């Protein structure tokens, strides 16, 4: 058996044997979707008061619709949020992808790998791959939940869009998992990893177009949003789902692929260096 396949299957077996833990990974994104997404009904905030003369209602309504669509791409804020939460979910679960390495170090399993002649980058890559498979499987469940909660998919949405969604989120997952697994190459305490995760998760989500469009942000925040891979993943996912289009903005796609490639190259190089000795 190939070492990479064996180590990926190890990660997967450990994952699906912890069924309860899998359930918990859905809790946070589910809260965001069901509670935040559903309680924040942006469209209804702009309900035209009864005092407005009837002859203006249609014109005002038309203006409101256009403003909201211009900002969110859809009249339905829930759909905007849900399409943002898919990538946020990938981020959140990728953040914990380095945990298995830290535990392996703690529990001595890493020594077992390090005394073997297995290529050091295999140890790193197996976790990136396993994390990405897990993320995409979990995304499937999340997508179904979002549909059940009323996700409005664009009229052109077809199997090709769905497939490309998986590819985009897969690339995002490779990027984030590579970054967080690389970080955990040196970490010995899982508390440190949790602290890093808590430090980064919300800022990364807020400094992106996941919850709100970046155009209305102050310029300094826009700069952060612009370099945040989440933003570009969201642009791609919204093109696929809300617009139902498959012709993706080339800048965002290129940016995402570039980040993933750089992250994986750095991860391979550092694992070759760091994983030589305990």
């Amino acid at each position: 058996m190939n070492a990479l396949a064996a180590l990926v299957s190890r990660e997967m077996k450990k994952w699906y044997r912890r069924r309860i833990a899998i359930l918990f990974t859905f809790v946070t994104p589910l809260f965001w979707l069901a509670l935040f997404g559903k309680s924040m009904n942006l469209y209804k905030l702009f309900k035209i008061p009864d005092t407005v003369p009837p002859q203006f209602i249609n014109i005002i309504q038309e203006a409101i619709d256009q403003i909201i669509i211009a900002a969110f791409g859809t009249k339905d804020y829930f759909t905007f949020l849900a399409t943002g939460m898919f990538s946020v979910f990938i981020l959140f679960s990728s953040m914990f992808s380095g945990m298995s390495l830290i535990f392996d170090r703690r529990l001595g399993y890493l020594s077992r790998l390090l005394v073997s002649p297995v290529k050091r980058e295999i140890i790193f890559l197996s976790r990136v791959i396993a994390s990405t498979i897990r993320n995409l499987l979990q995304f499937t469940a999340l997508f179904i939940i979002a549909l059940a909660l009323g996700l409005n998919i664009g009229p052109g949405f077809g199997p090709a869009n769905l497939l490309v969604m998986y590819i985009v989120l897969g690339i995002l997952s490779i990027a984030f998992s590579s970054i967080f697994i690389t970080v955990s190459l040196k970490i010995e305490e899982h508390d440190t990893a949790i602290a890093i995760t808590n430090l980064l998760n919300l800022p990364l989500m807020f400094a992106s177009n996941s919850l709100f469009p970046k155009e209305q942000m102050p310029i300094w925040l826009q700069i952060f949003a612009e370099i945040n891979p989440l933003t570009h993943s969201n642009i791609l996912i919204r093109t696929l789902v809300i617009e139902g289009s498959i012709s993706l903005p080339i800048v965002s796609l290129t940016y995402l692929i570039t980040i993933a490639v750089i992250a994986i190259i750095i991860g391979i190089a550092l694992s070759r260096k760091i994983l030589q000795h305990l």
Partner: protein
Amino acid sequence: MAVDHIDFEVYEGEIFGFLGPNGAGKTTTINMLNTLIEPTEGEAIIDGYKLGKDNEEIRKIIGLVPQELTADDELTGLENILIQASLYGINKDTALHKAEELLDMVDLKDAANRLVKTYSGGMRRRLELVMGLIHRPKILFLDEPTLGLDVQTRARIWEYIRSLRDIYGVTIFMTTHYMEEADALCDRIGIIDRGKIIAIGTPRELKNLLKGDIIMIEVENGVDIDYQDIIENVSNVKEVKYVDGRLAVTTERGEYTIPELLNHLHSKNVKVRGVELVKPSLEQVFLYLTGRRIRDEEAIDSLSYRAIMRRRRRI
């Protein structure tokens, strides 16, 4: 510094043991030799390969059974073994075949498809042995292979280790702080204390560092006996003392001295009430060399942290 300029050789096909108290530098030495830790200076040649330069080659020919139980307890025994085999590029059929043979040898076949977390300590140790051997290493490092096991299980592990050497011709480098383990199992022993090797040799050679066996003889009127007369007339006797109401006769190979000694005492009309032969043990050798005793009590500490982590991880 855990280890300070040690120098030793291990011969092919032997069981070589590092004996010393906890913290003496045993695990550090093992981890330097198996490439886990980079030595700050010095040189080691393993089967012709130079440590540091040829680490990849060394990793192919060594196996490690670490002190901690490090098999993945969320997987079954067989799953653990197959992953281990894959690290060495062994294909699945060969791995299954070898796994079956080794599991059979350590009587673990029935438990092969159970999750490791359901294993007892002894079973886990045996699984670790199988995992360390699946790629047929030329050299096997065993770090405290019976730590925390009860006496019966320990004796069984010894048997397995002996048969490993006999059947596969593996060179075994092991550490232990159990005297009787080193004595029963090792062809040669290096006694290590505070990062330095203080003696090296076969168990017999080490024990010969002491002057020899002691024959304790309970006699009537011990005070009246001419000690010099015994030393001169009984072969191999080196020293005679009177300790706690008994004669303490230091000699080589006491079992052969006893008949002659008793005959001599009989001829001198000394009445003998009882005889005890005290063989020198490694415990006494260590005491003789360092002035301290090796203690067993700290042994559990190194396991407990990981045990806590394991429990924590399951939550």
